[in-house]
């Protein structure tokens, strides 16, 4: 079944019109103490501009590894991934960093805010990396969008889990990325706060026409995405609900 993932997700020809992310036969294996360990096996998928896409699966199914590969944080052992037409396995880490800076935003399960920075300074980080002069003003706008203006001078330790994740979302959207990766964005939050954060994520996704790729084991959250795949032991076991690209 998993071997047919590419057939299920349609023709993965790179550079197809509207396709922002294209993965073909992506495998990842590492050398473990007891020999080679296959984490992902022949995963193929395509995501179009503006789409929302969920990767679901149990713990240890390879979701996070796949997310890392799609975002260019790591390289596959075999296979091919193209981000906005750029073959990730053919460019070096520096060029991938450039792509990420221009195109990608991240939201993590454990927020990953820098503890020594205020909420505002955390949001400013991606803009500072681009060397933009309007970093502070745009960070304030982003915080306003997540309704945290009043807490912009607070440090992460002074914020609740939900507030920290909202700051992380503001940071993810502040430089208007075309593609947002979210790794279990509500995993560390209670149901109500999780609902609030996911509402925020989807509404920003809609407003900014950002493509959203979401890793989750929460079926409700996955169901809010236009499409989803399920991973089991590194293989795609369930096809997307609807074909992404017409054959």
């Amino acid at each position, binding site marked *: 079944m998993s071997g047919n993932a590419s057939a299920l997700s349609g023709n993965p020809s790179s550079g197809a019109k509207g396709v922002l992310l294209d993965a073909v036969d992506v495998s990842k294996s590492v050398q473990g103490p007891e020999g080679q360990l296959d984490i992902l096996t022949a995963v193929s998928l395509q995501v179009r501009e503006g789409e929302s896409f969920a990767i679901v699966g149990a713990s240890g199914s390879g979701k996070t590894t796949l997310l890392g590969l799609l975002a260019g944080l790591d390289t596959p052992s075999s296979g091919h991934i193209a981000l906005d037409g750029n073959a990730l396995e053919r460019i070096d880490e520096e060029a991938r960093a450039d792509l990420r800076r221009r195109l990608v935003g991240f939201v993590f399960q*454990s927020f*990953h805010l820098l503890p020594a920075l205020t909420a505002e300074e955390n949001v400013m980080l991606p803009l500072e990396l681009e060397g933009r*002069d309007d*970093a502070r003003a745009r960070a304030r706008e982003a915080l306003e969008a997540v309704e945290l203006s009043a807490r912009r001078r607070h440090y992460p330790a002074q914020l609740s889990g939900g507030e920290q994740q909202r700051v992380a979302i503001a940071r993810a959207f502040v430089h208007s990325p075309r593609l947002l990766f979210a790794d279990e964005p509500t995993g560390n939050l209670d149901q109500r706060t999780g609902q609030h954060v996911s509402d925020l994520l989807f509404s920003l996704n809609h407003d900014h026409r950002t493509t959203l790729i979401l890793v989750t084991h929460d079926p409700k959250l996955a169901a809010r995405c236009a499409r989803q795949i399920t991973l089991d032991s590194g293989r795609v076991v369930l096809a997307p609900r609807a074909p992404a690209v017409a054959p």
Partner: protein
Amino acid sequence: MRLLTLSLRSLRREWHLPELRTLGASLVLAVVALGVVATLAARMERGVLASAAELIGGDIGISSPQTLPANFAAQARDRGLQVTDGASFPSVAFAHEQSQLLDVLATDNAYPLRGSMELARGSGTVVGHGPAPGTVYLDHRALVALNLKVGDSVQLGGRDLRIGAELVRLPDGGELVAMAPRALMNIGDAEQAGLLGVGSRARHRLLVAGQPSPVQSWRAWVEAQTLPQGAELITPEQTQERMRSAFDRASAFLRLTALLSALLAGVAIALAAQRYARRKTNEVALLRALGTPRRQVLGLLVGTLGLLAVPSVLAGGLIALGLAQLTWSFASQLFAAIPTTMPLGPAVAAAVMGLAVLAGFALPPLARLAEVPPVAVFRESAARRVRRFDALYLVPALVALVLIWSQSGSAKLAGILAVSLVGVAVVAALLSALMLWIARRVAPGAHPALRLGLAALARRRGMSLLQATALSLGLVALLLLAIVAPALLQGWRSELPADTPNWFVLNLQDDQRDGFQQALARSGGEKLNMLPLAVGKLTAINDQPIDQMHFKDERAKDWSDRQLRLSWAAELPPSNEVIAGQWHGDHPAQAEVSIDTMWRDMYGLKVGDMMRFNVGEGSIDARVGSIRKVDWTSFRVNFFLVFDPAHAASLPHTWIASFYLPRGHTESLAQLSREYSNLSLIDVDAMLDRVREIVNQVSGAVRWVLGFSLLAGALVLAAALASSAQERRHEAALLRTLGARRTQLRMAAACEFALLGLVAGLTAAFGAAGTGMWLGHAIFHIEHFVPPLGALLLAALAAAIVVMLLGLAGTARVSRTSPMRLLRES
């Protein structure tokens, strides 16, 4: 027992942590530095005392105006000690119808027991002992004055004695007591000639030598006896005050070096312990949440550190002993004649001090760690709220103070170092706070790399302050050792330049001054310095006759019985400092005398007191105008009592002069001696050589110990970097995920570390210069010491570059951190 097992297991699991290794290495280093120096200093002290023994010709002795009872020698022999009997007295020798007053030493054949006596026979120089009956040894000046040569006869004490050899050097040849040419004769001859009988001016001397413990036992026995009137112990300690003072300065240098190394190690330990504590916070919170009592948590932490400390201090102690032995075997030619056993006490003391450093510097963060509440498992911020133990941070400061106090052996040195280091720490903290404040303000408009670097500094505000302060303290210690200490040593050495006066002349008459000056210039003598010298006795203080007064100080009676050397000068002599009253100048209204501090203490004198002296037929009444501190180590001619020239110049006087004559000019000196046969010429080369040897030896040792300090400095830097490494890695991973280029991270790190290094370097350079000047003036008594500012500033820049490079090297791994780390940490 269970706690011990748990601690052992914990240490085994955590041994791979860099901070624990830093802790261990710092501790080993602290013990090694303290141990090597203390062991060497203890051995050197024994060596110096032993070589002082060489200079008196025995380990210890008694000098007495009367013959000593026989039991003094018998008690020494009973203890297995060697004994030599002797006496010194002035006597006139006759030959070829010429006469010359000689300073005669009569000894038995055992003399000298320590050191060596050099004799010239024929063309060579041999090492010899006291002369056989019927034989006498005369020194060059005596031979020249009496127009004699070896093999001739000379009449001494009414007996004809054969000149067996020319006396080249007596063990105590360097003493300034030889007023006249010297002769060495057999004590049996002297007794038979009646030179030692009642009424003679002989001073008897019994010297003993042997193993340290019987010598000590004999000394204790002697001290329990009632000595004959006027008799006194001759000890190596008192005999060579100048050697002693050279040694004291030497050990002050060494101890300073060791101390700074230990403090550096302490800073490294503090940083590593703090890092360890932070890493353990979650674990402790978990243990507490699982119901482990606070006491057990603390026990586990202390146990782990204790198990790390025991092998570390043992290793440190052993390495210290090994290195001390190695150094000693290289340096021992200085004290070749006297083997000294390796003292173990200092190494043990160093190990104890090492433990104190560990406890003092590592305790505060660990004690705080035990206070982490169980709720911190849910909320990390809860762990940060523990404020109760802030006072504990006084502990390392106290340990540092105690360490400085115990190691420096001087309250003054301790005070200067403590104040300087605290000053440097405060200035470093203030400067870095200022830098951070500026960083916050200039960052938005700065170059992106600089902006990121400044942002990184500002982000870790507390850590940046701590790192800058620790680096400054580390660097100030290093600069003190690497630049200031050698400059101080150089300053000290230049106080004893190769052309330091090495001859003293006594008995020069007014009408001989010009002629002598010209004759000396022809002989190649230089740096002639003449001072008037009158001989007188103190007769009254404030109109009260001195023999009716009573003084607590035993020396007072002795000095009022003596003929005193008096001089006068219009200018304050070099190496003299007026500490009370006013220097009299050339013409005060009434006669004034300036006294040395020893006289003030002996007689309880103060400015304004009146003193009367008998000089020749007349007397002089002088008011105490000032009190001086005299540097008796300066090898200049100095006097306890200096009058104003206007009132004293008419006193009957001769002149005392010092000059430098290059070695190998003895022939021209013999000529001078013949021309001016009334003069006494005294050679001080032997003592100068000894002091120079010590200075050189110490310079070598300081450079050697400096190696440890450099290692300690590197450890501080490593610990400072390691203390923020985890945070940096996390941050780098995040920045990489957000798209930061590697060069961006490297440039930011370069800016950050260069700024940190610059702040620390500049603070340290000025701190070291200030401390050096203070130490030079107050401790090492080096006049006009100017710290090498240029070298210090260069070193500050170099420090900034080194910190930057090391910082970059240390963070190279950080910039290579895979961004995947973040996802994994989720």
